[in-house]
C-alpha cells in the first residue's frame, strides 16, 4: 500500500489483483447488471488511485475501496431511479417467482446448495425482486458484514431505517426462497 501511494504502479496492480473480484461481487450485488458492475469497479479503482494520498494508512485498502464502490453503486442506482422510478415501499413483499422448481435441500450446507444452477437462478431472481434500497443493505450486510452504523453512513440515512430495510429484505428473500428453507427445516 505504501509503495502504491508513492506511485508504484506495480504495487497498485497487486492491490487490484487482490481485491477486484471482491469489489465486483459487491457492485454486482447492488446494481444487478454484470456490465454495469464491471464499469463501476473500473471507475472505483481509477478513483482510488487518483486519491491515494487521501487514504489513511491505518485503514485497510479494501475498506476504503469498499466505500468508493458503494458510493458509485448508490449513485448508479439513483441515476437509474431518475430514469425509471421504482417502488420503494419498505414493507412491500414479493411473491415467489418460480413455483415450478422442486424443493431443494439445503441440508445445513448452503455452500453445497450453491452448486445447483437452479438454486442460484432462484437467488438471482429473489435479489432482483428486492427494491434497490433493500438489496443494497442486504448485500452490504451479508457480503461484507457492515454494521448498522456503517451502512447508515454509506447510504446517508438513519440507523433505524437501515434496520428496517434489512429486516424486510431478509423477510422478502426468505419468503421467495421459502421452499428451500422449509426443506432445510424438515431435514
Amino acid at each position, binding site marked *: 500500500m505504501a509503495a502504491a501511494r508513492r506511485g508504484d504502479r506495480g504495487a*497498485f496492480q497487486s492491490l*487490484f489483483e487482490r481485491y*477486484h473480484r471482491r469489489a465486483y461481487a459487491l457492485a454486482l450485488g447492488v446494481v444487478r447488471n454484470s456490465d454495469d458492475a464491471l464499469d463501476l469497479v473500473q471507475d472505483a479503482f481509477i478513483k482510488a488511485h487518483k486519491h491515494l494520498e487521501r487514504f489513511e494508512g491505518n485503514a485497510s485498502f479494501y475498506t476504503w475501496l469498499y466505500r468508493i464502490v458503494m458510493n458509485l453503486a448508490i449513485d448508479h442506482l439513483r441515476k437509474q431511479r431518475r430514469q425509471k422510478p421504482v417502488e420503494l415501499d419498505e414493507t412491500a413483499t414479493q411473491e415467489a417467482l418460480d413455483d415450478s422448481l422442486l424443493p431443494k435441500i439445503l441440508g445445513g450446507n448452503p455452500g453445497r446448495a450453491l452448486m445447483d444452477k437452479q438454486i442460484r437462478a432462484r437467488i438471482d431472481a429473489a435479489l432482483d425482486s428486492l427494491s434497490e434500497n433493500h438489496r443494497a443493505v442486504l448485500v452490504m450486510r451479508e457480503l461484507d458484514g457492515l454494521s448498522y452504523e456503517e451502512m447508515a453512513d454509506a447510504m446517508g440515512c438513519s440507523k433505524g431505517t437501515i434496520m428496517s430495510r434489512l429486516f424486510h429484505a431478509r423477510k422478502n428473500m426468505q419468503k421467495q426462497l421459502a421452499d428451500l428453507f422449509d426443506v432445510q427445516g424438515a431435514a
Partner: protein
Amino acid sequence: MTKPTDSDDNHDLGELVRGHLELSADDVPAPRFDQMWREIDQSIAEPVAAPALGVWGTVTQWLDRKLGYIITGVASAGAVAAIALVMHGGGGGTVDNTDVSAPAFGGAPAQLESLETPGGTATVMEMHDEDGDATVIWVTSDDIEGQDNP
C-alpha cells in the same frame, strides 16, 4: 430435533447471498479483468496535474502570460506622458535663460497725464511704424537760445 430459528434462517440466507455473489464474481473470465486492468493502467499512466508552483512560480507564470499586455500598456502610458509634457512646455524647476527676449512694449502707448520740465519745454511724440509703437519725449532748455537739446 430443534426447530430452525430466525437467526438460523438469517445465517443461511447470508451464506446463500454471499456465496452466490462470490461465485458470480468467479464466473467472470480472467481476460475480462485483464482488460479492465489495462484500461485502469492506461488511465492512471496519463500525466497528472503539474506540481504546485508556489507564489513566485505563480507570479512568473502570470507574467509570462501577460507580458505582451504589460509592454503595450507601459508604452501607451509613456506616449501619453510625453504628449502631456510637450503640451505644457516642459516640467517645472529649471529655467532656460540663454534666450531672453527684450520686454515687449506692445499694446497701448504710454499715457502721459502731466509732464513738468522746469527751465525747458517738453514735447511728447507717439510714433507708430512697422517696428511697433513708441513714445518719445523731447525736452528743449529755455536758457540756451537757438541750441537743440535732446
